């Protein structure tokens, strides 16, 4: 389990343009933080930098588990989960094939994939090909893989956008449970999350 995520003096540039600089953020177990800011401020880039997919221009992201600081690569391979704009689902595979693979790939088991499918009300859809699912159903399938795997840091990019009101509430409950069990959430949002979360504004600091 991760205990602390430490973002120190982070700056991100895309091409020649500096999106933001001097960003400091500490996230501890059981805590959620939301990133707010206008379009293009760098919320997605920040999430990808924490996930190690994007190299920051300056600064560092480090991780600590209960046993002390751990290598960023090890943390990324075992402890964090990223859900971007895209759901990362293959349209020609069935919902169950995708959920099962993604759960096993991120360290979960088949039983937890089943439980997550029940949790997100996906049981009727599991035999369907992903191409037959609506945008909201696809997003629920993508969210189910978060709940199914044992990873503690969730990086979410606009996770609620395609969900209806009922599903938002249900996902709020899942997030609250994740936090209660010592998880962490870092999310970029336009609408507020249905859980208590620290708000961090991006793109208005420095230049």
């Amino acid at each position, binding site marked *: 389990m991760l205990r602390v995520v430490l973002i120190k003096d982070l700056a991100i540039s895309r091409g020649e343009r500096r999106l933001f600089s001097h960003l400091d953020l500490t996230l501890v177990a059981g805590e959620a933080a939301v990133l707010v800011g206008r379009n293009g401020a760098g919320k997605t880039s920040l999430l990808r930098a924490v*996930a190690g*997919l994007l190299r920051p221009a300056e600064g560092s992201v480090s991780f600590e588990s209960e046993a002390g600081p751990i290598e960023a690569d090890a943390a990324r391979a*075992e402890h964090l989960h990223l859900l971007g704009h*895209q759901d990362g*689902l293959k349209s*020609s595979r069935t919902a169950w094939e995708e959920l099962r*693979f993604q759960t096993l*790939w991120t360290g979960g088991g088949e039983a937890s994939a089943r439980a997550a499918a029940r949790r997100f009300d996906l049981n009727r859809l599991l035999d369907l090909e992903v191409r037959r699912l609506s945008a909201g159903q696809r997003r629920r399938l993508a969210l189910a893989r978060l709940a199914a795997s044992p990873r503690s840091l969730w990086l979410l990019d606009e996770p609620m956008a395609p969900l209806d009101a009922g599903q938002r509430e249900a996902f709020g409950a899942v997030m609250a449970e994740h936090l209660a069990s010592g998880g962490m959430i870092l999310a970029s949002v336009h609408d507020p999350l249905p859980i208590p979360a620290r708000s961090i504004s991006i793109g208005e600091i420095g230049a």
Partner: protein
Amino acid sequence: MKAFGVLLRRELALAWGKGGGPLLALTFYACVVVLLPMAAGRAPERLAAIAPGIAWLALALAALLSLERLFERDYEDGTLDLLALGPAPLEAVAVAKCLAQWLATGAPLALAAPVAALMLGAEPKVMPLLVLCALAGGLAFAFLGGLGAALALGSKRGGLLVAVIVLPLFAPPVIFGAGALDGYAAGLPWTGGLMLMLAYCVGAVALSPLAMGAACRNALD
């Protein structure tokens, strides 16, 4: 290791099951093998002379076309992010993808190669060597093609770019393999060509995953 197995099975299912799988590559292969004699002239003795060469070159082309989108789909639909955050490094992901590609299309093509060569009138005694060349060469084609596909990630007109990157890399195995086949058919020394080709395959399998991993990381950045 367990994660690698899980990924390999998924990649195999994707390469084998969807969008025609090996059938499409085999059909393409058959088309090229039928077209080339029409261009090269259909006198039986001339065809028999170039038959192993045609069967061999068409194999490289079929491998190339089926590899073009090896990473592109995962890149576009966000799966590559997920694969990058898995327990295995991107280099291992690349190995799984290329291996699955080889099992799903390279190996069936290798079995089709002797049929094509026989149809064109090649001598039956060349067949075992042709299958061996096609299996080993197919492995090299899969890994080098994967390298091209990874380098072309995110570019428009990726298909042409992949071909331009990859075809020069295909030259050595095509030359060595054809040399071994020609030598064997003519009763000349042939093991040298075969050994060189196998060595090239080993090099490609060992080195290209490093480049594929770096290219994928670069595309995600």
